[in-house]
């Protein structure tokens, strides 16, 4: 015997199913939510008030899958590049946040540039990124631009290291320059740059904090566990999204972020900079490269098995 919509017992069940359907994006719920609810109620024993675990798992997995598929709209090239640009812009802001008390204007302008990138306001984001980038490069090089800034810039929170103490001016130039290049890159098939999630702001403390320590403190280019955890989690999520959607935009975003990181580190390790990478750096870099490769290969594998 299956549940009907009238009995008081099933109204509890229906309410619980409705809560589970929140796993699906709103447009999908509006279009098909009642249809799914009908089938769920017809498929469930009338005396149940708690949804069977199998249905709970199916709805949560189906909802997440549908949400990810809904994210994969528009031009792959433009959206994938915008994803990578957003990640690098957020990392650039996170690099300044611990020093906000010393350089409040530039941190605020950097936050505005991230806001513009997130909202897809390309022509607002570009001048802001250029302005903050010029100042950042100047600080990294010990030069004065726009206003007098005492260098080195010491932190107020989250880290104990001076601003850009591990970065050469050329590395900072790459980090900001590629954001501008990414924003300017034309999409082969046009399309608009869409707004991205507000959740990107939540990434900033993880990227800005230099703890918990993983590498020897005195080592050049320390990578914190909080940063590692976030980068690995986001890239793993990108690989899952690529698997579910058979779409290459996540791979493009990860490759852009990885390219900025790799180019920056490579420039830093040129002989004149005297920086030597540890086996931990290489292992972590290999892991990021592996995850980026997975974001590209999983959609291709899935395309051959298009029905599953």
């Amino acid at each position, binding site marked *: 015997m299956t549940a009907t*919509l009238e009995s008081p017992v099933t109204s509890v069940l229906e309410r619980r199913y409705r809560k589970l359907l929140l796993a699906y994006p709103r447009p999908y719920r509006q279009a*098909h939510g*009642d*249809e*799914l*609810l*009908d*089938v*769920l109620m*017809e*498929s469930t024993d009338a005396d149940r008030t708690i949804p069977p675990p*199998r*249905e709970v*798992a*199916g*709805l*949560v*997995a*189906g*909802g997440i*899958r*549908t949400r990810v*598929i809904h994210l994969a709209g528009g031009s792959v090239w433009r959206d994938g590049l915008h994803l990578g640009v957003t990640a690098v812009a957020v990392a650039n802001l996170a690099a300044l946040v611990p020093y906000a008390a010393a350089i409040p204007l530039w941190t605020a302008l950097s936050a505005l540039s991230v806001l513009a990138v997130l909202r897809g306001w390309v022509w607002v984001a570009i001048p802001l990124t250029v302005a903050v980038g010029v100042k950042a490069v100047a600080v990294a090089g010990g030069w004065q631009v726009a206003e007098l800034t005492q260098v080195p810039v010491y932190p107020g929170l989250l880290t104990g290291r001076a601003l850009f103490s591990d970065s050469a001016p050329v590395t900072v130039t790459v980090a900001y320059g590629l954001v501008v290049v990414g924003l300017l890159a034309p999409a082969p098939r046009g399309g608009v740059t869409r707004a991205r999630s507000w959740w990107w702001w939540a990434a900033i403390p993880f990227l800005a904090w230099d703890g918990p320590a993983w590498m020897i403190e005195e080592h050049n280019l320390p990578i914190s566990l909080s940063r590692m955890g976030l980068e690995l989690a986001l890239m793993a999520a990108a690989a899952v999204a690529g698997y579910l959607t058979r779409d290459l935009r996540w791979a493009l975003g990860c490759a852009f972020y990885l390219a900025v990181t790799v180019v920056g580190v490579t420039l830093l390790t040129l002989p004149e900079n005297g920086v030597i990478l540890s086996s931990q750096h290489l292992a972590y870099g290999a892991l990021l490269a592996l995850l980026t490769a997975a974001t590209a290969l999983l959609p291709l594998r899935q395309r*051959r*098995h*298009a*029905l*599953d």
Partner: protein
Amino acid sequence: MSRGSSVSEQTYFVLAALLDGPLHGHAILKRVVELSQDRVKLAVGTLYGALDRLTGSGVIMVEKEEIVNGRKRRYFRITDDGRRLVEEEALRMQQAAAVVTGRTLGATFS
């Protein structure tokens, strides 16, 4: 299904369920259980995920929509591509099964 196959067991039974005519979601669930002799029981979220993907791939399509108790109900129909796909898969499995069943029968009568 096995490695190298393009259709999972769940997808195979969903397509097979539609071979006799268009069905709505709950009817597909029941038909899949019958055809698989209780082996394949799809969760509703899993079924609709599969129906969305199969519709996107063009192997099934929405035949019609009805309003029942004030709520929309879609009927899904298998397309010619879908019918060809499930028939090819059945033939492939038949040939694969014959490799083993032929050997077993041969051993029985030898």
